[in-house]
């Protein structure tokens, strides 16, 4: 029931915030803050009260209520470690989004907070629901308020960006709906039980062609959301035009729904089709890493630059997901969390700068370290996170992903690792252009105030925690990751077409590796 409350509190809070705007301008902010704090507290409680490693099943809580029984649609929510982590991230960033909007948003405050809370509710629903119809429903719920957030409170080119965002996600979402329906009917015809339940649909046996088609339907939605390179072009526009809170939620959370979808649905539902597709997916990931990095380097709009870094970082996610081993998937989960934090933080810094300077053009900035050393230090931390400096969370994420993907495909991993050099190139450019060199602006740049420090410090603390002691997060995610991987570990390691190009690096003992894998599964030391 607590799962339902999470969604209900956010939705009710949103409506309440909207209504309360009529009474007082500040009230919606407090209501939003209160509701997000409430759900964050509840999720924290869930996390702390469930010692995940000792549980047998991956699932911690389930909730089930028939919704439209004629069509087999249930209001089915379930929580496992993966969704728990995602929820923690969601509410943490949600909290920050409310805080950063405190000064930035001055028009239609009430409606803004309504949208903000409903986006969060939609994301929460996406992370929790185990009914595919409901999943699609929440998928759309998070889309529409986001459209308003970009379209109403965005920057100069907001309507273009909002439409683009909407068209891309909506078109791809419809393909997913088709795939969901296809799965529903195939399963219904096979078993006579027409249901959208995730747990039931997992047992569907699919003909290879059908599996391929359905997988592409799901992939369409998730790859566009992630985004993977040929489908990424909505992202720079949406990110750079959205208000700061919108950018944070887009980069920190909406992109993660794509990654989550891959993990939760694509991997377990289509175990054979994904293996066939894996080399290509990994290739797309590597292209994304490199392409995003190259483009990020030349951008002059700070938020656009950060948006392209997201493209680059999300390449690691798809690279890892399609490596089908625990290292890579743990890396992916870590990447989702740390990228949410680090990119969110960079967008927040861009927001701080925009509030002060009214520009996002880094060519007009420079030398801000002198006047704003606190901002400089915090920016430095997250710039370093973005180039995955060890000791910060992103390093754990990317290293694990690469370790995992190395087992699957050598050459692509090499190219992905080269992406790290490119990450250095664009990341250092941010520092150089904004905080170093001489100040080209007339106006002074005040340093961060107390409210802004309140936003920044927890993020720094989190990214350090994730970098130095990520074990609690990894433990939380482990059972669900092993569950997603069940279909893969039983079968021999996936045949990887690309690595056959490189006989000399094709390393000797895969058997040995499997032994290590097995040993580690039995007694984790």
């Amino acid at each position, binding site marked *: 029931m607590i799962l339902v409350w999470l969604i209900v509190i956010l939705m009710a809070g949103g409506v309440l915030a909207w209504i309360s705007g009529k009474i007082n301008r500040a009230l919606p902010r407090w209501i939003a803050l209160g509701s997000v704090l409430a759900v964050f507290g509840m999720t924290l409680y869930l996390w702390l009260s469930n010692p995940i490693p000792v549980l047998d099943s991956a699932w911690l809580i389930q909730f089930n209520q028939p919704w439209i029984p004629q069509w087999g649609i249930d209001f089915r929510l379930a929580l496992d470690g993966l969704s728990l982590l995602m929820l923690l991230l969601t509410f943490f960033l949600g909290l920050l989004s409310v805080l950063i909007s405190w000064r930035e948003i001055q028009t239609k405050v009430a409606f803004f907070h309504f949208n903000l809370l409903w986006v969060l509710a939609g994301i929460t629903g996406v992370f929790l629901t185990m009914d595919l119809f409901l999943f699609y429903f929440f998928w759309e719920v998070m889309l529409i308020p986001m459209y308003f957030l970009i379209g109403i409170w965005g920057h100069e080119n907001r309507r273009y960006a909002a439409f683009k965002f909407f068209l891309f996600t909506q078109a791809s979402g419809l393909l997913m709906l088709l795939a969901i329906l296809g799965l529903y009917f195939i399963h219904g015809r096979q078993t006579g039980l027409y249901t959208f339940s995730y747990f039931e649909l997992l047992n569907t046996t699919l003909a290879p062609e059908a599996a391929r088609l359905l997988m592409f339907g799901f992939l369409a939605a998730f790859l566009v959301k992630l985004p993977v390179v040929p489908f990424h072009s909505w992202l720079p526009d949406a990110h750079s035009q959205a208000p700061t809170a919108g950018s944070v939620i887009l980069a920190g959370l909406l992109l993660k729904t794509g990654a989550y979808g891959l993990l939760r649905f694509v991997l377990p539902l289509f175990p054979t089709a994904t293996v066939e597709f894996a080399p290509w997916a990994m290739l797309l990931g590597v292209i994304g890493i490199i392409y995003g990095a190259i483009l990020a380097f030349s951008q002059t709009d700070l938020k656009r630059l950060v948006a392209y870094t997201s493209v680059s970082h999300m390449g690691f996610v798809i690279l890892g997901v399609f490596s089908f081993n625990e290292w890579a998937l743990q890396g992916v989960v870590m990447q989702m969390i740390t990228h949410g934090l680090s990119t969110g933080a960079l967008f927040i810094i861009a927001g701080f700068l925009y509030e002060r300077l009214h520009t996002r053009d880094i060519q007009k900035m420079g030398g801000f370290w002198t006047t704003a050393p606190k901002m400089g*230090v915090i920016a430095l931390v997250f710039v370093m996170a973005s180039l995955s400096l*060890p000791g910060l969370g992103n390093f754990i994420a990317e290293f694990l992903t690469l*370790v995992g993907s190395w087992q699957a495909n050598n050459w692509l991993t090499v190219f992905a*690792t080269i992406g*790290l050099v490119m990450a250095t190139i664009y990341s250092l450019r941010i520092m150089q252009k904004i905080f170093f*060199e001489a100040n080209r602006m007339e106006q002074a740049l005040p340093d961060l105030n107390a409210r802004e420090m309140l936003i920044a410090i927890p993020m720094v603390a989190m990214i350090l925690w994730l970098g130095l002691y990520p074990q609690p997060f990894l433990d939380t995610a482990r059972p669900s990751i092993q569950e997603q991987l069940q279909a893969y570990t039983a079968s021999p390691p996936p045949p990887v077409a690309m690595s056959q190009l490189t006989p000399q690096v094709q390393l000797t*003992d895969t058997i040995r590796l499997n032994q290590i894998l097995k*040993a580690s599964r039995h007694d984790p030391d």
Partner: protein
Amino acid sequence: MGELLWLIPALPFAGALLLVLFGNRISRALVSVIGVGSVGISAAVTLVLGIEYLSSRPAFIRQEVWQWFDVAGFSPSIAFHLDALSMVFIFVITFVGFLIHIYSTEYMAEDKDYARFFACMNLFVGSMLMLVMADNLLLLYLGWEGVGLCSYLLIGFWYKEPENGYAARKAFIITRVGDTAMAIGLFMLFQQFGTLHIQSISTEAAQVWSIGNETAMIIALLLLGGAVGKSGQLPLQTWLPDAMAGPTPVSALIHAATMVTAGVYLIARMHVIFALSPVAMTAVAVIGAVTLLIAGFAALTQYDIKRVLAYSTISQVGYMFLALGVGAWSSGVFHFMIHGFFKALLFLCAGAIILALHHEQDMRKMGGLSKKLPVVFYTFLIGAASLAAFPLVSAGFYSKDQILWLQLAGENGNIWLYLAGLLGAFITSIYTFRMVFLTFYGEEKTHVGHKPTWAITVPLIILGVLSFAGGFIELPHNFGHVVLFSDFLAPILPAVTMVPDFNQYEWMLQLLAAVVSLGGIFIAYLYYYKKPELIESIHRSEFAMAIHRFWHSGWGFDQLYDTLFVRPYVYLSKVNKKDFIDSIYTFIANVTQNFHELFSRTQTGVMRNYVAGIVVGAIMILTISLLL
């Protein structure tokens, strides 16, 4: 006894953290106390541990602080490993670091970012200690990247000058290229062994692989890539001369004594894997030999005193690689230690000169300083003697001589490598004493402003003593035969297999080395002190000047990389700034819009046309139904 181990890196980290948090609010004196004190205590702890270690001689001490993470058997710890090899490095890092910190309190006294400087320096010392104390390669990688970060921050310390920022970026990016290779090496190691724990890898590798194994070779070469990047060796050496943009204590600590020798540490630490691959060993030696020559020639032509020292650092690290490449592990480490002393000394002296001359770094504008700055002069002379391997009385002579000797006496040695080393030694003594003569002799060209006080002179004197006496712990067979150092390292680093019956030639080679060194000094004396007109005559030759320019630019590597990598990358990025994939979608949108415009024309607003449309439609429907 290992309980204190974690304190060694933790203290500088704590200092850095304090300075970051409160640095702007506390007085400079307190900043100095925190900055210098943390490293000082760390050095004291090192001393205590070192004494304990020497007295009990365990194989190693390991302390696990906490388990970093554990994913499906991949479980690195934040754990420290102390053995003889890391002991040497910790010793150099903390003690030289401590001296340089003291020195910095005076050198940076006028700077308004005093606290930031010490925060970064402390962070560096902590990361460097992490690097050398790590018990697994992932933690080593953490330190490895951490020192890269500090190097970046400190090179770009005076960030208002865009050039400094570019130099810092260049340093970070180029070393990152090497790090990437190293990371791939780590992936392969993990795939092979299922762990990154150094001891386990070392023991298992020797069992799993035989000599010449291809995988071992690839891994060794990839690790070498990392080492080459960090240590400024060919082909990734171009960042180091530019890194001199940082404050001089930084150059002394990071870009001479410690960080650039991280590559040496890595190779020495992973020597088991390198030893398994003759190809990789040869690569190490050849890279070392070529680098030491190239950097030596480049150093000959520099005018900026710090750039001379930078090239000389590259060259000296080349010697260490040369030693490692023939399996003379402990000789390489020995040279690292001696080099750490004398190069830090030289940089600090250069810093004192620069400070005295109002931040003038061009040697052509120096001169006659021997009278004005006597302490600096004498200590610089000791350092220069050591760098030039002045026979018998300098530490550098013993360490370098050992390397050269083992090129021939060692089983893996090679006459060509020996000759390269010898030629390098010759060039080294020329450019070293060129520096001495240009700086301290001749007439005074710039007025001396700041006279160094104790904070500068005391570290100089201590380092001077070490540069002089440090060599006596390891003396050649025919010359006292002291083997304290190699004995100390023997449990970790195996000794070189000697060519039999070669010892009788040792004194000849020593003589040769001494002659070469003295000859170089003499030439420098001739050209730069006695008869400067000889230089003029060289300057008149067009060919010589072309070579001069070529060497001055560091053999054109910067231009080469600019054309090969930088420009294409920037061009690619700029040309695609608008993202051509986006234009595909824009094209689709435009097509749709054109259709929209086409069809919206049919909506004329004239009712008659609509009626006509209805009629046409009716006719079409009727016709079709009739035809069907």
